[in-house]
């Protein structure tokens, strides 16, 4: 935001700009239907650019912090929301994403890591978001074999009780119903998800006084509540009553289609 620019002072009273928080802030402003009049686009692109490292990955902060697929996704999502990819070397970032792919079929958090549902979403959403930039080639940098193997791993994580687990042989968790579910949606493999079992699991995660927990009998929290609702928006159970009528979700940005349209008309189509 332009109003917050401090200029000379090394240490403003604010926290250091953060890639993940920047993605979250842009989405939150769009959800709140901000007009984006005061958006400092060059400043955000400068942040994105200063976070990319030589191996293609991104750090959370310009001067360091974590560096794994979560930051790559945020950099791609920010570029896609701003419809300006000049802050990213897409080629080297895609190479980094590919280095995180492993034989299980998913993507580890960083190269060499065990496949994880959340970072698999980050990898796939990034690869498909990059397709939207005009200069990129048609391929999402994913071979048919890789796609099949990833679909297989994701489906294998839909447990017999209907919920998805985030890793091989882990217990199901409401948030992975989104991470894995959205990944399958991005890969065009939604039809293989057992939607009835998924909804049944998530309804069991529901707390009787409101909210959704990560697992049945657990304590609800806003994060798992949102993730569960987002998963159900992608996978409404067949023959469900109208309480399952949820707004259409944009799986790549992880927001409603209405909010995505707001972004398109208020950020992208502004000249």
């Amino acid at each position, binding site marked *: 935001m332009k109003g917050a620019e401090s200029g000379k002072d090394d240490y403003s009273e604010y926290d*250091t700009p953060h890639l993940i928080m920047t993605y979250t802030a842009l989405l939150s402003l769009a959800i709140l239907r901000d007009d984006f009049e005061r958006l400092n686009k060059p400043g955000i692109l400068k942040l994105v650019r200063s976070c990319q490292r030589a191996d293609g990955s991104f750090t959370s902060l310009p001067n360091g*912090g974590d560096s794994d697929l979560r930051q790559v996704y945020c950099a791609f999502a920010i570029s896609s929301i701003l419809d300006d990819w000049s802050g990213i070397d897409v080629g080297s970032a895609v190479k980094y994403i590919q280095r995180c792919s492993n034989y299980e079929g998913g993507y580890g958090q960083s190269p060499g890591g065990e496949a994880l549902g959340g970072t698999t979403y980050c990898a796939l959403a990034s690869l498909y978001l990059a397709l939207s930039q005009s200069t990129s080639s048609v391929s999402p940098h994913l071979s048919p074999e890789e796609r099949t193997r990833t679909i297989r791993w994701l489906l294998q994580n839909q447990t017999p009780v209907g919920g998805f687990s985030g890793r091989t042989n882990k217990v199901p968790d409401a948030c992975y119903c989104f991470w894995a579910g959205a990944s399958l949606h991005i890969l065009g493999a939604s039809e293989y998800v057992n939607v009835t079992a998924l909804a049944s699991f998530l309804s069991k995660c529901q707390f009787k006084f409101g909210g959704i927990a990560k697992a049945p009998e657990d304590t609800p929290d806003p994060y798992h509540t949102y993730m569960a609702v987002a998963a159900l928006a992608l996978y409404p159970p067949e023959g469900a009553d109208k309480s399952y009528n949820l707004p259409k979700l944009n799986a790549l940005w992880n927001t409603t289609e209405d909010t995505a349209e707001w972004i398109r008309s208020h950020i992208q189509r502004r000249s």
Partner: protein
Amino acid sequence: MHGVKRVQYSKEVLEARKQRDQARLKDYLALYEQVFQKRKNKDFSQDAFDSTTNILRMNPELYTIWNYRRNVMTNGIFPASDPSKVNDILSDDLSLTFALLKEHPKVYWIWSHRMWCLEHVPDGPTDDQLKGWKTTNWKKELFVVEKMLDADARNFMAWNYRRYILGNMDPPPPPSAELTYTTKKIEANFSNFSAWHQRSRVLMSLWKEGKLDEKTSKQTEFELVQNAMYTDPDDQSVWIYHAWLIDAGEDTALLRREITSIQELLDEQPDSKCTVYGVACPIQEAHFGEAFGQLGP
């Protein structure tokens, strides 16, 4: 955490907790104000350092203050300390963050601060033992990460961190030691895919460096994984590891042998879904339609 059930608390307990939380919040906000003011004033004193300790103990997610703490160290404290003192300060920070990790095992900032500390351990104690302090600290770190994995054998951050430690230790530990560690973890619970995954990484590097004969070692691995298959044919870990061992399925003789062995298991346990699935994956991938046909329905 999974498995922690909700508990009903009495009104009195809830009220007492509320009072306690409010007092804590008041302290936190006062401290927050103070630390950010110091940061704004570029205060790199010992006093500033101590305030960051206090607030990070209360909230280890405060990344701006972790960064500020490192600035206090490099700009204020280290220039005024001899190498031995710097080593002591970093060792203290490693102890502090270990205590924090026990309470917050998945806060990224704590893990990354440990990495920073380890990477800043000075040379010493003497010219003859330039790596002395470094070796001691990194060795201790491997012990810490083992403690973390004892507490939660699936903590992926601890596994990632373990790989980072092993990759940076100087001198590196003997390559066979990590293989032994994964054997221990797999024997404790063979459903723990994180341990199988680590094993696959270790083996790949041992084969690549020629420290282990790939063919003989693969044979041992097939035996290990077959034992696990017979113990629980519905366990996903063993099938994924098995598929990794078969690799791209280029060795037809090996594929036939494995199909026969899985067929035997399937005859014994006809209800096992994973069994059919397990053999189908790598073979389908390698387009061995003919070989797959042998398996039957």
